[in-house]
């Protein structure tokens, strides 16, 4: 369903991604782990074209972008709508309430009717456990609550894939659980997800597959029980020893 072929990304002289190949099946949850600077966030951002790849081909369902040539803006906008992005720092719109944050995409981008968008946004906020906070501004919410609004905002666009960029890294420890729970629920519902995270427990419990990245390449990929108990590559072993 998702396929990445020969993905390269360079920032000036710094080569961050050095040829990534990856396939993700529909409904699978893929957790990407690796040391900082390994390129895992960059890979995720390339999938949402927040970074323009230097080279490579990305497809989601029937849409394909080939970055060996120039890609029209229109195709990028259409491609982006297939993915929902959840950011490390939430990036909620501070001048809009939780409900307005979630409604913004459907109303402005999809031209949905305001009333039905409102109902849908309310349902989504209830789903992430914030039914009683719909009229709150981001500043009135805790980090965990803000991140759950972020998830609802991404879901409102009916994405085919949800991308999570270290969604719990900015949270106080006691708030991590509530966000992970929402993510697990999503996974159980069959949402296709790519999750960059340091939460190894989440990887063990929710991932269908774990990918270990280092220095811009995929070093190892396997089922979570395999990779955590029996890593094949030396680099994977070293990394897992360091964090456990």
């Amino acid at each position, binding site marked *: 369903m998702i396929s990445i072929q020969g993905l390269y990304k360079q920032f000036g002289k710094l080569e961050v991604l050095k040829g990534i190949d990856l396939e993700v099946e529909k409904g699978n949850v893929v957790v990407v782990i690796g040391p900082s600077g390994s390129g895992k966030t960059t890979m995720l951002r390339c999938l*949402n074209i927040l970074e323009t790849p230097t080279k490579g081909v990305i497809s989601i369902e029937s849409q394909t972008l080939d970055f060996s040539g120039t890609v029209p803006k229109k195709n990028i906008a259409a491609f*982006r709508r297939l993915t929902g*992005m959840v*950011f490390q720092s939430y990036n909620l719109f501070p001048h809009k309430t939780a409900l307005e944050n979630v409604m913004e995409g459907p109303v402005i*981008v999809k031209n949905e009717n305001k009333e039905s968008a409102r109902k849908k946004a309310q349902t989504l906020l209830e789903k992430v456990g914030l039914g009683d906070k719909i009229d709150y501004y981001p500043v009135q919410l805790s980090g965990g609550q803000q991140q759950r609004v972020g998830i609802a905002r991404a879901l409102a666009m009916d994405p085919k894939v949800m991308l999570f960029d270290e969604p719990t890294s900015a949270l106080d420890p006691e708030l991590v659980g509530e966000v992970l729970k929402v993510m697990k629920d999503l996974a159980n519902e069959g949402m296709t997800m790519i999750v960059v995270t340091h939460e190894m427990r989440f990887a063990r419990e929710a991932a269908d597959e774990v990918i270990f990245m280092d220095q811009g390449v995929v070093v190892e990929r396997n089922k979570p029980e395999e990779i955590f108990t029996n890593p094949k590559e030396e680099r994977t072993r070293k990394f897992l020893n360091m964090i456990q």
Partner: protein
Amino acid sequence: MKMYLSSIFADPERTARLIDIAQSSFLPLLKGAIFYTIPLTIITFIVGMVLAIVTALARISHVRIFQIIARIYVSAIRGTPLLVQLFIIFYGLPTLGIIIDSYLAAVIGFSLSVGAYTSEIIRAAILSTPKGQWEAGYSIGMSYSQVLRRIILPQAARVSLPPLSNSFISLVKDTSLASLVLVSEMFRKAQEIAASNYEFLLVYSEAALIYWVICFILSVIQQMLEKKLDRYV
């Protein structure tokens, strides 16, 4: 000073004359303010803000030619006196066969000035909005102009309100320069009245007082707006 005061209060006839002039000149001055000074300020500020936003966007765009044009515009306007600009537009351009009515000349001159100065305020305010806000907008499929209009500018407005209010208040007073290109705004009215009765101190003070009142009302409005925009911070 002492002589002036004693001449007023020692001579009842002169006192009466001054009160009479103060009263009779108040209405024409107020008319000048209501029909010329205030509309001129508002129109100019709106046109100027549009210019400012376009210029700010040109400055932060990646298209080099836009950047250069915007830089030259801001540099030229900031580098020359407003009065000289007004004179070029009103007295200078007719040499080229371009004849512009005095009111329009003032609108053009002031708008160009407001546009250049406030473009820097807008630019700074846009740049002060975190990059993540652009990314969040793009990630839900919004276009550049949608992100700009719905996400970035509302946040930039809050940051730029105090410096923009400053520019607006300055503009109210700067419109008095329009008297020199024959716009019959409040200060020109004051000059005409004073020229006929020679009570310069009285009439000009009266005009000053009206400017002050207008600017005072504006600062009150500014405070109310700031409170309103601060609700989500």
